[in-house]
């Protein structure tokens, strides 16, 4: 099946940092969130794919076409929003959009106008006079107006205040929920991922060490409380274990295995509670690779 994108053994090194070897692919219509702390390799990964960085080795493809910088047809299918929003600063938003429209066969002026309206973006203002939030909005309109099959969002809301971020994301997610496009989204702002992502990939030190469907995480991970007198119990699949007297609280990465063990051990008052994706992601990020294999 045609992949929205694929990385094959991609390596990119900087002094003191190495990304990869990175192997990653995405099915069309899937939303993959790449999560990791600052400096983990999220931006490097996405910049290699979009062509802003040249990988040292390996190969990347977008809809089966190699991301060759001198054969740019593959970019017709991409919409990219990075953490830096570059425009012709002395031009208005409208002039910037008109400039971009020349390069995309699928560009729709109507769609651009509609998106701008939904984002409440003042297109008559010069880019240099736009607020940071409005610059993000202009970037999003620029990236969406040609209806790309693959949307690459690299921490698009970084640097904007929470109110504007919520406003931008509300509209963005509403737009994205109705489309059938692949999205590769990097972020370290966890609440953003739960609304949109189908799958999560965790990256640190340039290496993706866990990739999992979001539903699997919601299904498997639970917060479990129980009463038990035993002191040195090792709970199966426990990511964290807190104890106050005979009361225990466990975060389990496989609640079925944990519950089975606790019942066998005769624990009382066993209760399991679902966790939000943000909570789970925080535990995974804090626990590192050990959590993935717990």
């Amino acid at each position: 099946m045609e992949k929205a994108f694929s990385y094959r053994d991609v390596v990119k090194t900087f002094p003191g940092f190495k990304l990869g070897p990175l192997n990653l692919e995405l099915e069309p219509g899937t939303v993959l969130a790449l999560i990791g702390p600052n400096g983990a390799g999220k931006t490097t990964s996405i910049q290699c794919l979009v062509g802003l960085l040249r990988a040292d080795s390996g190969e990347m493809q977008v809809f089966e076409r190699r991301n060759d910088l001198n054969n740019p047809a593959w970019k017709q299918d991409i919409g990219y929003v990075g953490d830096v929003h570059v425009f012709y600063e002395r031009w208005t938003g409208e002039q910037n959009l008109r400039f971009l429209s020349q390069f995309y066969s699928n560009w729709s002026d109507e769609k651009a106008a509609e998106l701008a309206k939904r984002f409440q973006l003042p297109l008559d203002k010069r880019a240099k006079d736009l607020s940071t939030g409005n610059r993000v909005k202009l970037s999003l309109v620029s990236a969406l107006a040609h209806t790309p099959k693959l949307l690459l969002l690299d921490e698009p809301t970084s640097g904007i205040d929470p109110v504007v971020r919520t406003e931008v994301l509300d509209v963005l997610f509403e737009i994205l929920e109705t489309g059938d496009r692949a999205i590769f989204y990097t972020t370290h702002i966890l609440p953003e991922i739960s609304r949109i992502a189908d799958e999560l990939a965790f990256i640190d030190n340039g290496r993706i060490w866990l990739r999992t469907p979001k539903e699997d995480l919601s299904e498997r991970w639970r917060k479990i409380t129980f009463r038990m007198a035993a002191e040195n119990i090792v709970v199966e699949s426990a990511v964290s274990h807190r104890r106050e007297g005979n009361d225990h609280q466990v975060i389990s990465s496989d609640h079925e295995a944990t519950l089975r063990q606790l019942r066998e051990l005769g624990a009382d008052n066993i209760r399991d509670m679902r966790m939000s994706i943000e909570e789970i992601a925080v535990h995974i990020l804090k626990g590192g690779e050990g959590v993935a294999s717990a």
Partner: protein
Amino acid sequence: MWRLLKAEIGYNTQVFLFILLTSFVGFLVIHFWPVLNRQPLINTNTGYVYLAVTYSYFIMAALVTPWAKEKRARQLVCLPLSVRQIKGAHGMLHLIFWAFIVALFFVWIRISEYFILDRSVFLAMGVMTGISGCAYSILAFASRFRDSVARGIIQIALILFFGTVAVAGIVHTYQGKGNSHAIDELLSWIFRSPVSVLIWMFAGIGSAVWVLSLPRQNSYGE
């Protein structure tokens, strides 16, 4: 490439107006300022003024054109354009700036009676065009370094080198046969010898083509 070039020319209209205005002011100053001793300008050659014009071009290219300041490459690389098209449009834009400046230069010196255009002037202009090509190539090559210190050192060294040549040329122009016979000889050879013209033109054009055709650039994000 042409759509991009057209957009860039439209976007840089102010830069063209800036060039037109500053060159006109320069012309007025040289032509009408009574403090200037005009005789050396007639007796030596127009080429050194051309060198000053060349230097002005680099200052203008570095400070006035918004390509680098606005991180244009970062935006354009993400569009369905090849790197060759982007580089081609950028190179053409500089060529058009350059041609515009040179055209104005010829217009002004034809209007003023204080300049001459003879064989030695054209030789000097050839040399300076070659030097400009080398300078452009070094700047373009230095911009590839991620290390901002190395990049800065190369760019400052270039400015100093080019500035020194410019100042030497202008001083030579005003002082005629100056204090140092050896320096006069050297400057005369550099700017008036057909061999020197060939060397500089070859080096300038060759290095510019080489830099523009380099296949690998590791980052367009800066």
